[in-house]
């Protein structure tokens, strides 16, 4: 039963992915990506990785996909040329087919068993791992996330309009912010 579900979800994943690549409107593509992500979440659960599934849903489908949707809606871009007829699209298709064939063939070299079907991942176990053995990478990725936020802010921020600043006149007298407060180290 679970096996059948796996294959079904696999199909929906592939259907979603194919539409991402094939549809002209990126908005439609994004929705299909959501479909693919949800299907994958299910697959993770079936494989026995609840934490991964949860994180996928929260982070990926929740944050990243939403961000993507925002940008798509903001920019409203239009693709000007036809999709399949372009030479590069054919090249991409060709390469993809080759890769798919090779990947499947490579996958087929495995012994064919399910490995460890009883294997389960738990949030606690993974969490322990993340906070003990792999603490450094974990903290580092946290730092990376902070950097990403800063980067996005810098990249996305708008330059102040020159007229706006010109209109603001500085006050005649700058109040001393430390005068009223008795900080010992306020003034030299």
């Amino acid at each position, binding site marked *: 039963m679970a096996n059948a579900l796996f294959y079904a979800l696999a199909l929906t994943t592939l259907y979603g992915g194919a539409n991402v690549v094939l549809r002209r409107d990126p908005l439609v593509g994004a929705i299909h990506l959501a479909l693919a992500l949800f299907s994958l979440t299910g697959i993770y659960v079936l494989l026995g990785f609840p934490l991964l599934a949860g994180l996928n849903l929260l982070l990926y489908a929740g944050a990243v996909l939403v961000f993507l949707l925002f940008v798509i809606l903001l920019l409203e871009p239009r693709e000007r040329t036809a999709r399949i007829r372009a030479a*590069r699209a054919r090249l991409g298709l060709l*390469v993809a087919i080759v890769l798919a064939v*090779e990947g499947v063939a*490579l996958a087929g070299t495995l012994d064919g068993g399910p490995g460890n079907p009883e294997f389960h991942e738990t949030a606690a176990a993974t969490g322990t791992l993340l906070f003990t053995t792999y603490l450094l990478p974990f903290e580092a990725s946290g730092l990376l996330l902070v950097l990403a936020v800063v980067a996005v802010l810098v990249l996305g921020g708008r330059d102040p309009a020159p007229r706006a600043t010109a209109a603001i006149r500085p006050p005649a007298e700058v109040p001393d912010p430390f005068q009223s407060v008795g900080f010992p180290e306020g003034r030299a």
Partner: protein
Amino acid sequence: MGSSILFLLPGLPLAGSLAWGLVHLRLLERRARGEEARAPERLLGILATLAVLAPFAITVYLTAQWLGAEPGERTIEATLGSWIPARHVSIAATLRFDPLAAVLLLVVTGVGAAIHAYSIGYLHGDRAFARYFSHLNLFVAAMTLLVLAGNLPLLFVGWEGVGLCSYLLIGFWHEKEGPPAAGLKAFVVNRVGDAGFLLGIFLLAREGLPLDLAALREASGGIAGGIAAAAGLLLLAGAIGKSAQFPLQVWLPDAMAGPTPVSALIHAATMVTAGVYLVVRLDVLFLAAPQVLALVGAIGGATALVAATSALAERDLKRALAYSTISQLGLMFLGAGSGAPAAAIGHLVTHAFFKALLFLAAGSVIHALQGEQDLTRMGGLARRMRGTFLVFLAGAAALAGIPPLAGFFSKDEILAAAFRSEHAIVFGTLGLATSLLTAAYAFRLVLLVFAGEPRMARRDVHESSPLLLVPMGLLAILSLAGGLLVAPIERFLPAAPAAAHEGGMAHGLVVFLATGVAVLGVFAAAKTWRRRGAEREADLARHPAWRVAGAGWFLDVFYQRWIVRPARALAIACGVFDLFVLDGAVHGVAKGSVLAGGTLRRLQDGRVQSYAAGMAVALALLLFAAWSLLRP
């Protein structure tokens, strides 16, 4: 004064050469800045002459000291130290002054000084006055070194030095077309001989024989015949090149493109005699190889005769004298080859006197005629240029061997030796035939230049200045009376160890024949050219034999066709090869790199997706590799 005084002999002219060279450079600088700059002619000329006269005085002094000494004590040696201290062949910088060297030095410095003085007048007004005297002094220095050298390598240095100066001085007027080519020709032909010379030195060194001349002389008795012959042959090649004997004589007539005093000094009196000097110096070596010695005589005799015919047929005054020089040098070789090196030296001395004189007088005539050198366009100068006429006549008579002039005595010695030698008939006949022709062409010159009606365009010909006449007069006196020197010189020089055998023709008979032949030649010339010389010349020129002789028996043509042209073609081929193949390869590499770069550049189109495509293809290849490794 110690033996190091010897170093002044080449040293003074060398210093002079450097000095005048610097003067000339300075003049060039000033001219480049636009100033009008001339050399201080009187001063420079006198100093340059003194730079040669001083060594002459020193030589006289040193020689005089010997007159009371024993023959064995007549050597002064001075060494500057080890020049090439190689392990197997150590060569020192040794100068050796012995009677042979003394005789030659007297000629070189004495006649040289006279010619320096003459040059002051001849080169008057020339813009390269300083350069001329620099070269001329350098020549005297090199020639002195050559004569004084104590070993073969050092001699070779002097040898090359005179060759260099010959090149520089022949091509002195390098703005003109002829001189540079002639200078190059002289140098290249000499080079052929020099190659032989060097190989000879190498052979001697390889055989472990000493390169020091005195030591070599002593060791010569014990050298195996084959080695001696080979070495002798190779060194003879050098002598042939330098002294313009067959087959390397083609450069001397062309060398007349240089100033006439240069022709007088270098190509009559001194440099060309270096070959004779070499053969005489190594007489013992040649005696160890009798066939080579015979070859020396044969080449000398044959060259003498052939050159004499060319002198007879030549229309250019200086070229005729050049052929005459070749011929007389041939006689000197003939003498050496007959086993009488002292006779050869004797003739070297007298020839220096009268040939230099003839050249200087020719220079005087050419100068007066403003550059005319064609004999058929001269004539009737006896009245207008009395002095020159008289000295020229003296020189010609000496050349012809008219007794009791200098040439007679020295030539007589050679003829006597020829008739006493092993190949008496051949050598003797060659010698006599040459003497006949010599007398003929000598007086032909006199008659064509000075007798008859004037044939030149200009009518305002006048005698040359005393500055030119005095040196000529000195040489004339020597030509007339120099015969007295011949016998003492011969006694002075060390006798050849194996003198030519006695017997052969009696000396008196030789004298008779020689005189007869000379007189005969003079008469024949007088009959032919005394009146209407130009028409005679024209008539004779139609004779094919005359034309062959006049063209130097086409040796020059032969060389041009079979050696010069192929060499030039080869040079051009190499040039083309270098330009297209070698340079092409280098350029090709560069162009190839640019081409490759340009092609590769097209991969960089700035598009992310192209780069990603490349990565994807690589990934595909990797996956394929993994699969082929992992499949069961």
